[in-house]
């Protein structure tokens, strides 16, 4: 079945609201406006204002209210418009959502799901374009996922709502209008498993979220040059599926990590470290990283493009890890 990514997200929301009366959605403009990325359009009409709740612009209060409501027996889905705004709720996320189970000696549970848009590509400049999911992946006590495919956009939400602890879902804003194929049968893939989206033998391109499409395009271009690139979609950024990462590297002996976050202190750095720790002697070349330039994302198209990982820069990185003369 064909659908856009945003429609897939909406199907996930609808399925969740239909399957569990404890589920409700709250966030800025999720109701009458239909969601700033139109993911929740039509849900207010279908489920009513008790379950589709427009909130004031107060990220800390409504994320915290999601934590409290989850503790109180509900299964809230909180939509934060973008990761950039989620910084206003960091206290609630880091100091409360992530700590309460442990700090209460196991008495409290926070089965909260938070969705937000992330990433650059629409010339939204330096306050609407950042990829901070790597920061969230630093925090013990929460699970962080990034649905890169339409199936995951639909299915990860339902899986997140079955978790006993907070789950953060990062949807890359460039994916929303993209058309794709949705499976109509079969069980969803488990939340914490990485997935090989393209098999290959020469190099592992490890990525997630909005960069998956670019990585697959790069693999296609490389195939034309006779280079067989495997593309691993991490899917879950915390906890990382370390075995899948190491397994792929053991097969190809070369790794390129594509991460739209900034390079310093990035998720890409963490993955690199895990490869060093777990597959050092399997490597035939140093690990390469393709990350965003270390600059606030600029407004003009040509500079924004230059700041972000692109198919061409991924191809170049792959060439750097291959033996001279290969491809």
């Amino acid at each position: 079945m064909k659908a856009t990514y945003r429609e897939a997200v909406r199907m996930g929301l609808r399925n969740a609201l239909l399957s569990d009366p404890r589920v409700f959605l709250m966030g800025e403009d999720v109701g009458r406006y239909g969601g700033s990325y139109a993911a929740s359009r039509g849900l207010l009409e279908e489920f009513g204002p008790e379950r589709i709740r427009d909130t004031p612009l107060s990220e800390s209060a409504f994320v915290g209210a999601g934590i409290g409501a989850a503790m109180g027996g509900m299964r809230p889905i909180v939509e934060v418009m973008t990761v950039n705004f989620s910084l206003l709720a960091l206290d609630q996320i880091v100091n409360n959502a992530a700590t309460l189970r442990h700090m209460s000696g196991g008495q409290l549970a926070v089965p909260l799901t938070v969705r937000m848009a992330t990433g650059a590509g629409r010339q939204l400049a330096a306050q609407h374009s950042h990829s901070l999911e790597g920061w969230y992946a630093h925090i013990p006590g929460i699970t962080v996922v990034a649905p890169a495919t339409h199936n995951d956009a639909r299915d990860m939400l339902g899986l997140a709502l079955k978790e006993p602890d907070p789950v953060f879902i990062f949807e890359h804003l460039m994916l929303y209008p993209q058309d794709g194929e949705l499976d109509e049968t079969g069980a969803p893939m488990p939340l914490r498993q990485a997935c090989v989206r393209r098999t290959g033998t020469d190099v592992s391109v490890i990525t997630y979220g909005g960069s998956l499409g670019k990585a697959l395009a790069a693999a296609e271009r490389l195939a034309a040059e006779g280079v067989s690139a495997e593309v691993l979609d991490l899917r879950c950024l915390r906890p990382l599926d370390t075995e899948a990462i190491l397994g792929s590297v053991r097969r190809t002996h070369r790794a390129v990590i594509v991460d739209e976050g900034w390079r310093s202190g990035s998720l890409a750095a963490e993955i690199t470290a895990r490869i060093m720790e777990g597959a050092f002697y399997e490597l035939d070349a140093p690990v390469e990283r393709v990350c965003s330039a270390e600059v606030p994302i600029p407004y003009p198209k040509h500079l924004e493009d230059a700041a972000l990982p692109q198919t061409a820069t991924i191809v170049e990185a792959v060439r750097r890890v291959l033996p001279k003369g290969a491809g």
Partner: protein
Amino acid sequence: MTVTAAPGLGIERAQAHEILRAMLLIRRFEEKCAELYGLEKIRGFLHLYIGEEAVAVGALRALAPEDRVVATYREHGHALARGVPAGSILAEMYGKANGCSRGRGGSMHLFDVSRRFYGGYAIVGGGLPVAVGLALADKLRGEKAITSCFFGDGAVAEGEFHESLNLAALWKLPVLFLCENNRYAMGTALERHQSQTDIAAKAAAYAIPAEAVDGMDVLAVEAATRRAATSVRSGAGPFLVEYRTYRFRAHSMYDAELYRSREEVEQWKRRDPLRSFEVLLTGEGLLSDQEREAMEQSVQAEIREAEAEAEAGVIEPVADLLRDLQGTGP
């Protein structure tokens, strides 16, 4: 049991003793904590509530067992007044596995969900949004419980205070916002951190009814909180109560108290809520010297038991370090 109505106070002898004992328990418990801190049995931060006992005791008497309580990092008094056993609180401060949070939280993070005591929040203002959410859950589930949320005057300067009041009022949620105004945000005096020092007046900006009350008068605290709770229970939405109180001890055990004068502290100590209530009861003929002495003995015995329980507790094995990080079921 002798039931002596006291027309002047509107409480019976047994109730009067219950209130006095609850305040005395907090006072003696915290004096013991200070001593144990000196002995390094208790580590980390320790924030004493001494001077403010009338607030927790009076306010929590106005709540029902099903109501929820969200407190701050200065919450020993609230935990005790809510019925969390002194032994489990002290064991928590010892970092022992028999502590009310399995030793994972310490003094600032007491939890006892069986008594609907939801903690122990040490980021000023951080408990307010959580309280709003607990109330939202109750409203959506059709429960009759209300959620009480304690915070200090310092929290009033935080954005989370304003965001939470707005959201709770907008959605008419059953939240009791309980501000313990002890006149200092750590060491910064109210006049130095608030442009409007009348905290109750701020509630009007969110169309929330509010009342300010003498926080050194336990009966006034209880009465005001009952009025507020009744309003919240009626479905009218949140209510804010401001208790005007004073912290007799330092902010924490590391505070040199450079920001206030000894005279000011002494002046407030003359209004000691425990002593004032004792004098009141004695004057009304509701408390004899023998009864007072017996109460002292029983409180001391309870604290000795608590100390023994904390001492006897075991620490968690290091192998359990990662326990309770992630749940196993939905």
